[in-house]
């Protein structure tokens, strides 16, 4: 049967956010500009990047995701996140290593309501004529530069984004919180992926080593942040350790 992750299930506890409750209302984020860059990562030890609840994809992957909101209930904000591709049982998922948000109000809400581990840093997402790029700086040092090069239009139905598994402290203990936003696409482009800068250590696990470009998409979408429907223990396979909420 498929390999399970071997990350110490207690390891994500350091830095994992605390969620006071899991009952959160959906929230609509209108016309989010999204960049999604996918790379294969070094398979040597890839199972060590995710907890036993999850299976690594074959081949293992990491996704570099940025959202830019010109307006929201929390004001304008930009978020970037790094995730390791995985399966929770049979479902495609992304295990969140870390996120950065440039708006403290948005960061607090994303942390408290959806379990995003938000680090202090400054993400900037820009669309140029020939590329869409995100740059993340911390203390004057660039820790991520990812881009879509040569955008060409595709249909929103051609794009597939996977849900997050965010490690967070809950009233049940440390859990993976499933966050599966809904997307209504207004525009979609794809292009060549580029990853000039990635400081894996700054994103929580220096063992993440991108080795092969897969794809890049840039979309404009209305994103509905969901209510929390499932949480899962980190130490048991997801089929055994998942709890339905509400």
């Amino acid at each position, binding site marked *: *049967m*498929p*390999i399970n992750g071997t990350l110490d299930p207690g390891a994500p506890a350091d830095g994992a956010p605390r969620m006071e409750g899991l009952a959160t209302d959906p929230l609509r984020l209108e016309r989010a500009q999204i960049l999604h860059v*996918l790379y*294969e990562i070094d398979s040597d030890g890839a199972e060590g990047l995710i907890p036993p609840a999850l*299976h690594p*994809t*074959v*081949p293992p*992957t990491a996704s570099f995701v940025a959202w830019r909101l010109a307006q929201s209930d929390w004001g304008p904000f930009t978020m970037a996140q790094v995730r390791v*591709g995985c*399966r929770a*049982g*049979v*479902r*495609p998922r992304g295990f969140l290593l870390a996120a950065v948000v440039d708006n403290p109000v948005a960061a607090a809400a994303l942390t408290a309501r959806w379990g995003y581990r938000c680090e202090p840093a400054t993400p900037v997402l820009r669309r140029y004529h020939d590329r869409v790029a995100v740059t993340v700086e911390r203390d004057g040092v660039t820790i991520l530069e990812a881009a879509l090069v040569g955008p060409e239009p*595709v*249909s929103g*139905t*051609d*794009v*597939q984004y*996977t849900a997050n598994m965010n490690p967070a402290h809950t009233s049940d203990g440390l859990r993976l919180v499933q966050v599966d936003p809904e997307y209504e696409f207004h525009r*979609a482009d*794809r292009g060549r992926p580029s990853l000039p800068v990635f400081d894996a250590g700054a994103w929580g696990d220096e063992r993440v080593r991108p080795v*092969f470009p*897969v*794809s890049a*998409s840039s979309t404009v979408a209305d994103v509905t942040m969901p209510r929390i429907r499932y949480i899962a223990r980190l130490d048991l396979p997801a089929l055994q350790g998942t709890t339905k909420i509400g």
Partner: protein
Amino acid sequence: MKFGIFYEISVPRPWDDGVEKRVYDNCLEQVRLADELGFDQVWAVEHHFLEEYSHCPAPELFLTACAMVTERIRVGHGIVVCVPQFTHPVKVAERTAVLDILSGGRLEVGTGRSATWTELAGFGADPDETKQTWDEYVRVLPKMWMQERFSYQGRCFSMPERAIIPKPVQKPHPPMWVAVTSPGTELDAADRGLGSLGLTFGGFSEQERRIAEYRRRIQLCEPVGAMVNEQVNTVNFLFCNEDRGYGGATGQRLAGTFTYMAAQLLAAREAYPTRSYPSVGLLPQLRQEAEGPGDPSGLPEGLCIGDPARIIDVIRRWESVGVDRINFLLNAAETVPQNEVLDSLRLFGAEVMPKFAESSRTGAA
């Protein structure tokens, strides 16, 4: 109704010394028995890099071994990947001709294009191009088999005039099929006069609708080969036991193991935004069927698992919606002990196959 067996050749971890040999030996033993019992076909996939799920990258070799240890059963590529980065079309024509010769004219040629990023990227293939290259392959293969000399100026390959040898035993050429996973591909098969090698189930009503449209469209086809192969082949799981409860439980374990492993694969569509892959292929449909609504016994209604009486009922329903052939997955990651797989086959051969012998004799070749 004709029956076949279908191999992904899944190999469970740990991959200790000899495990792949044991799995291949088990498969060959099943094929020998299936031949003795009167099964009509054995099919083998072509997959690469799909850890545990399928260790079957060289089906032509496995199928040659099958042909060497059997007398009647037909051997089928299910499928040949028609993408140049995987195999040049001349190589496909050559090796299939050799297999047709060695098997004494028992070859069936399924065609397809791969559906995982794992495989496509592994060979440096462009997911946007695979539908076009598949289309080109199915149009040139019959010519390569039939023409004394062949030359071609095309989109994915070109070549000066050469004698592509040897030629298949079957004349004008072996039957050709198309792997149907994405909705609508059965119409691609129909338009080209090719058989529909269904690798997904769907429900009875969904299949009935798709088969009816396939049959309507194929009447209007422009055949890519020298004959039309109007046949609908589908895949299913098989575990047959006198005890319905045990048979059903074991069959569900088999189906569950297969679908769980299949879900781990990185589908092309999941990794790469493209309209070339409108669905994620085999996986959701298989899962839906394995977990789908149950019949009164609680078993998924379309699966051939349980006791002979139940399996006969299920097959009659597939027959009623227009399916001509059913191919069975017998195991997944060796989750069913080999002796139970063989007993299941024997019981199916003794109790179920005779009920369909008449329709098989009167059906199309």
